[in-house]
């Protein structure tokens, strides 16, 4: 009797373990391992200050990658995000430099609104070109990547665009460097954006449609889902996320140049995949994405803090660590 009871309890425990989606947990395991490695490499690594720095600066890629999670889950790809950051940030600074509104507070609010609208429009452009234009997203966004980058270079005449008004700069600076209850603002923004995104993806009809469209477009269409609308909205969400990243980027250096955001699209896609979202679409893991972005940033940080890795080898080791992180995930999933 008692033996029976024990075994049934074990079964329940086992079932509980099985209920936890290991694929969703895996990125966090990889993250924990990295934290351990980091702590062994340099005692300063585990200091709150360093970890806060790393989390803060991962904000741009993390927020962009949250948007990319939607686009990738719905079976598309957006290569233009890096160039879009540069373009929208340049527009925002130029808008603030134009001095259309004299009052600095109103000006800042208008600039923020302007940035959000610009982001949504850029995303909408990508979405319409892929869906209405029926062009492969890879090519469509490669094209807009060139357009956004080229326009940025043209706006800046190849140089830098810098926020001129010192009063605005002073007022806006805390958006990156400030803290809320001791937590750096960008970290709060990451959490807020992710929470909203997770709600949309997991708890709304639109979220379920995204995953359905990503796993099988035809089946989704036959089920009465407006596939093109779902895909286009995913691109708009991506644009809004880019705008959110820009709102944090501009107060940091107060300037953009033609090299701003170069290769960020690849980092964002890597973060999404490391976070457990399949590149072929059909499953999205927003919290995993955040974890992926954090892992990417941590790897660079650990390399730099270590004393025994040649600066010439950093790229190679970064690549190796990403692959190892993915392998750790795979093996966990297989065990389940």
């Amino acid at each position: 009797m008692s033996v029976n009871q024990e075994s049934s309890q074990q079964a329940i425990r086992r079932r509980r373990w099985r209920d936890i989606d290991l694929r969703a947990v895996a990125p966090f395991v990889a993250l924990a391992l990295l934290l351990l490695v980091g702590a062994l490499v340099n005692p300063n690594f585990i200091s709150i200050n360093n970890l806060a720095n790393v989390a803060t600066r991962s904000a741009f890629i993390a927020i962009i990658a949250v948007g990319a999670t939607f686009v990738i889950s719905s079976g598309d790809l957006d290569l233009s995000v890096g160039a879009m950051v540069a373009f929208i940030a340049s527009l925002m600074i130029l808008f603030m430099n134009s001095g259309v509104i004299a009052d600095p507070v109103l000006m800042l609010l208008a600039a923020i609104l302007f940035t959000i609208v610009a982001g949504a429009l850029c995303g909408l452009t990508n979405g319409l070109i892929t869906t209405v234009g029926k062009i492969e997203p890879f090519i469509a966004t490669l094209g807009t990547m060139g357009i956004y980058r080229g326009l940025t270079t043209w706006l800046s005449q190849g140089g830098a665009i810098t926020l001129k008004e010192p009063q605005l700069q002073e007022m806006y600076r805390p958006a990156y460097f400030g803290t809320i209850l001791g937590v750096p603002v960008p970290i709060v923004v990451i959490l807020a954006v992710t929470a909203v995104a997770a709600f949309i993806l997991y708890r709304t009809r639109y979220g379920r449609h995204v995953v359905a469209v990503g796993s099988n477009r035809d089946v989704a269409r036959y089920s009465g889902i407006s596939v093109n609308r779902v895909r286009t909205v995913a691109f708009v969400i991506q644009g809004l996320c880019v705008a959110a990243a820009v709102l944090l980027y501009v107060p940091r250096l107060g300037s953009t140049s033609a090299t701003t955001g170069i290769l960020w699209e690849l980092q964002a896609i890597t973060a999404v995949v490391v976070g457990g979202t399949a590149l072929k679409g059909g499953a999205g893991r927003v919290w995993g994405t955040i974890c992926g972005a954090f892992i990417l940033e941590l790897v660079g940080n650990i390399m730099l803090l270590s004393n025994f890795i040649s600066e010439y080898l950093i790229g190679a080791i970064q690549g190796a660590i990403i692959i190892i992180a993915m392998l750790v995930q795979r093996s966990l999933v297989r065990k389940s």
Partner: protein
Amino acid sequence: MRKKLFGLTLAAMTALAGVTHAQEEKKVTVGVSIPAADHGWTAGVVFHAERVAKLLMERNPGLNVIVKTSPDPASQANAVQDLETQGIDALVILPTDPDPLVNAIKEVRGKGTFVALVDRAPSVNDNSVRDLYVAGNNPALGQVAGEYIKATTPEAEVVVIRGLPIPIDQQRQDGFDKGIEGSNVKVLDRQYGNWNRDDAFKVMQDYLTKYPKIDVVWCQDDDMAVGVLQAIEQAKRTDIQYIVAGAGSKEMIKKVMDGDKMVPVDVLYPPAMIGTALEMTVANFYGQVPVRGVYTIDATLVTKDNAKDFYFPDSPF
């Protein structure tokens, strides 16, 4: 007597010829081929090429300068060909990548066109390729920075932010090591910042975590200096005495001019060197002065006293 008269007529004739010569305005066309403005420094090159071209055309009414920008070696080779078909007497070229462009340059030069090469030299850089070579001095850029640090803070602990892993960067590093040779200046670390503001910000943040005490930062480039300064300000660290950057962007030159304590000097690697090459090329035709050879521009140490000579508030860089 007859001889004297003959001499006089000859003198008069040459004088007359000289006058007519000046009146008909010697026609010279100079083609300028430069990289498209894809980052701060090349943006500066474009700005100065256009600025000096305008100045020279005002000064010499018969002169025509055509400025063409190209994003990559292949399109630059086409641009050089286009310039050639327009009929140029001289070509001033700052190659995006020198080696792939050697043949295009030789082609132009084979037709008797004067060629001035700027900054980036192909592996074979002799007078079979160009008449004039105007270059910045990469080893000196490092050496001048190193010597300044050695002289100002002989016991300093320095962190270095490098550019990209390419030969220019290595030359600057070697120059720097030569500059600090024989002093107690200690290099704590060298990492790549990719000549990019955001990457330099990250590297500096990590340096600040890694080392509790840093005296001086050498980041060799004005773009990276922007990120470095921001990281130091954020960390509120007061141990860093100053930073040394380089190139000569208006932002950093302004800081030097204003006596910013964190940026006491800048080391010059001026994009305006395209203007030097253009001036010398035009001098070859109008001033008839010998200009063929190699002209290396010093990596001048910009201090508060001379900063205004290198300040271009209208330049994008």
